[in-house]
């Protein structure tokens, strides 16, 4: 039997021991003595979330294809095991070998959302790795961060040796060969970091010095050595059909959030929604070819036995060969009872036709990401959808048998007025009304339409047109949400409407971290020491711990959230070259304020700067 780091008795005492034992189908086991590099790859959240992440599946497969590397997984132990491990001084371990993370060469942590920051400290702490990079010794793993949050890694810069900026498929080979070379030459940790910093996309925070103005803004952000680049340029895959992608994804035993095979059809997005960070940092759009996708679909379904495949991208409707791909999958796998899931589709005749063929119309609901209630505000955020689109799409859907509709909105958008936000309620009511206008009474069979409107709170993100914009406070968010909620109660069709909104304090905190600087590491550390962990889980979010941490660190949240930044301010993430230029973002910020719409990349190039990679339309 494979060995477990936790005792049998302990495994039987915690919730879902399956989270900690490995042994899944397609998990990779190697002889620890036959490899040169041991890499622990971590998603700092619970197993069910971490196992649902495509990026880790890609890197796990890519690393393990190398004979000299063994990549193993580690996730945040759930709170029950966390407590046991602290009480009994059990060090954190990887799922495959069950060896201590501390003994690995690398600990790679994916940073998918800001609210995982305290969980990073949990992982380091349980592993017995010093929290601060500068306190680490030659014995400790190199702690490397990747993923979208590295587009402003400054709040957590102190905790990482390296950030890998951009797409993971590109420069790890280089990084590994420098690592091996350095090891062979008996070089130090510092030597390695210094040479790693020369690789494209590799950011070593300890090699940069930040000074501040009296008002707390950044005065200068400069490398401390001449051979360390001033600007770190993101990495991206240039040919999506000639790049590694797993044939054999891991198959968990327990039900995870994304319990299906994931086929990434393209990267990037042609829409330039001004609030969306992913839409900017993954530019330019790169599609995968039909043949590549057909081949991967087959291999992944065969090797996993999964009964569902999902087509993934930021906006799958914009994938140019979508029709052919979906028809192929339906044709090929109908007899094998494979379910096809199509998230993020724009609702129109085509998508409704496809969806009615792959899902149970009566049970499923349709989603419109309207994002704002009024057309004026939709123009400000450059969300291409119009009320006409929503009405036409929902009418088609009602005729097709759907009677559940979800509408997504944001509260707290730049230039937002009370009139704009009340439109959230009015628009929802008009969608409900649309059902009764479209479907004659005798065909409704007593079924009432259900329109669920959800509001999240707008958080300005780096590398978007709104990176300079002020954000609302938690109190403002709540006031607005209540205003909308009250309006819903007054609507004619209020019995067919439901309104829900996100946790306001959590959104505020995410806003602080999203555009934060190095001064915040103190707050994160204090909050963690006061028990903050699993912040993205509403039930474990400890608002008080954070409030105390801010007070103790003497840091004002408003500096990061409500303050409108000057256009010439040095922003903490200015050292990153993400492709899109600051000039473009400034233009977009002006267009936003003037309510001017910018066409999508396919209709007209707006000169965002990502064209320099030579991959645009």
């Amino acid at each position: 039997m494979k060995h477990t780091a936790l005792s049998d008795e302990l495994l039987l005492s915690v919730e879902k021991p399956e989270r900690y034992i490995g042994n899944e189908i397609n998990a990779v086991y190697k002889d620890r003595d036959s490899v040169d590099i041991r890499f622990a790859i971590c998603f700092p959240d619970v197993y069910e979330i971490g196992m649902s992440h495509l990026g880790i599946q890609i890197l796990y497969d890519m690393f393990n294809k190398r004979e000299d590397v063994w990549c193993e997984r580690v996730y945040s132990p759930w709170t029950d095991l966390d407590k046991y491990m602290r009480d009994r001084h059990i060090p954190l371990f990887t799922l495959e070998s069950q060896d201590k993370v501390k003994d690995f060469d690398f600990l790679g942590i994916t940073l998918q959302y800001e609210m995982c920051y305290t969980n990073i400290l949990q992982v380091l702490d349980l592993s017995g790795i010093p929290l601060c990079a500068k306190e680490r010794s030659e014995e400790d793993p190199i702690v490397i961060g990747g993923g979208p949050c590295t587009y402003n890694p400054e709040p957590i810069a102190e905790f990482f040796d390296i950030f890998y900026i951009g797409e993971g498929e590109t420069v790890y080979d280089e990084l590994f060969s420098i690592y091996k070379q350095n090891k062979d030459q008996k070089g130090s940790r510092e030597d390695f970091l210094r040479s790693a910093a020369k690789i494209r996309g590799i950011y070593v925070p300890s090699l940069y010095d930040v000074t501040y103005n009296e008002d707390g803004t950044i005065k200068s952000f400069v490398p401390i050595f001449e051979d360390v680049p001033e600007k770190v340029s993101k990495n991206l895959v240039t040919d999506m059909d000639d790049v590694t992608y797993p044939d054999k994804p891991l198959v968990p035993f327990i039900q995870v959030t994304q319990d299906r095979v994931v086929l990434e059809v393209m990267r990037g997005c042609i829409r330039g929604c001004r609030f969306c960070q992913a839409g900017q940092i993954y530019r330019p759009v790169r599609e995968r070819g039909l043949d590549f996708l057909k081949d991967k679909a087959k291999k992944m379904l065969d090797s996993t036995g999964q009964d569902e495949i999902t087509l993934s991208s930021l906006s799958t409707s914009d994938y140019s060969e979508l029709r052919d791909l979906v028809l192929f999958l339906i044709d090929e796998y109908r007899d094998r009872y494979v379910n096809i899931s199509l998230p993020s589709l724009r609702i129109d005749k085509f998508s409704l036709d496809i969806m009615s063929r792959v899902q149970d119309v009566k049970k499923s609901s349709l989603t419109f990401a309207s994002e704002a209630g009024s057309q004026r505000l939709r123009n400000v955020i450059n969300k291409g959808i119009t009320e006409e689109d929503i009405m036409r799409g929902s009418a088609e859907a009602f005729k097709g048998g759907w009677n559940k509709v979800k509408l997504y909105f944001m509260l707290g958008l730049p230039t937002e007025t009370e009139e704009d936000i009340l439109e959230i309620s009015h628009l929802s009511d008009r969608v409900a009304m649309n059902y009764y206008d479209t479907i004659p009474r005798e065909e409704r069979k007593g079924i009432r339409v259900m329109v669920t409107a959800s509001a999240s709170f707008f958080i300005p993100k780096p590398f978007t047109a709104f990176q300079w914009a002020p954000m609302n406070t938690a109190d403002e968010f709540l006031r607005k949400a209540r205003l909308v909620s009250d309006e819903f109660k007054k609507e004619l069709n209020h019995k067919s409407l439901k309104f829900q909104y996100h946790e306001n304090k959590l959104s505020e905190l995410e806003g602080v971290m999203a555009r934060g600087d190095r001064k915040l590491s103190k707050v994160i550390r204090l909050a963690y020491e006061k028990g903050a962990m699993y912040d993205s889980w509403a039930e474990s979010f400890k608002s008080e711990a954070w409030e105390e941490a801010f007070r103790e660190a003497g840091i004002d949240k408003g500096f990061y959230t409500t303050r409108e930044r000057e256009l010439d301010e040095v922003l903490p993430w200015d050292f990153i070259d993400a492709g899109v230029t600051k000039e473009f973002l400034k233009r977009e910020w002006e267009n936003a304020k003037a309510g001017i719409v910018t066409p999508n990349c396919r209709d007209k190039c707006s000169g965002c700067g990502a064209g320099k990679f030579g991959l645009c339309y």
Partner: protein
Amino acid sequence: MKDGNSKIRIKFNKHGLMKYIGHLDTMRYFQKVIRRSGIDAAYSEGFSPHQIMSFAQPLSVGVESNGEYFDLEVKSYTSASDMKNKMNETSAEGIEVTDITLLPEKTPKAMASVEAAEYTVVFRPGHEPDWDISKAVEVFNSASSVKVVKKTKKSEREIELKDLVHSVIIQEKALKDVFPEGPFSGDIIEDPEKKVPVIHTVLSASSGDNVKPAMLIRALRDLMVKTDTAKDQENEEYPGRTELLITREELFDKNMKPLIEAGSTF
């Protein structure tokens, strides 16, 4: 069952790390094994078609087994050994299909067929009973009635354990023979020669009257140890799933025959 379809019964064992996989996840696991191994399973009609699969008595997390069963409706089949090999080729370490039979048309579902289950129970090293378990078994076997209270989420009822325990015997074995491959992670065997009790029992396992081994062990303890009510409450789950190491050896039908008879194949 649809015309032309057949039903097969699959026997498997569950050891090592797989003992941590719960019942529902084991079902989900086998659905995928069947897809991977290319077995021609039949699917239900409707918008979310699923394999027509029926498991016998669920196995608790932490319990190992040499005798788990499920029935599967198939559209076509090859031979028992071919299907067994295909499934085992794509299996996770710790689960192995050991037997497959073709069921006669009117066989009741695996779940409905189960009458009794045989278990081997040992105590986790260091948690051996401090009461005389051999004596307890003797008392139990000669008693005319042993009543216990069975608590469920909804109700509490007194049941006659003597009617539900087909047999219970006890053996003394050296620790090195109880754990030939060594103990579980975290357990320490100080003296491999030390003799410990090993309980072999056959318990009712029908859907209405399922008796878990821990219930029998606690009843045996109660025959030996007089405890006050307060302490009883506290001890209700002791010894329980972290102190008892249980292996289910076999499931039996109403004729007390294994759900797959040895040697039956196709």
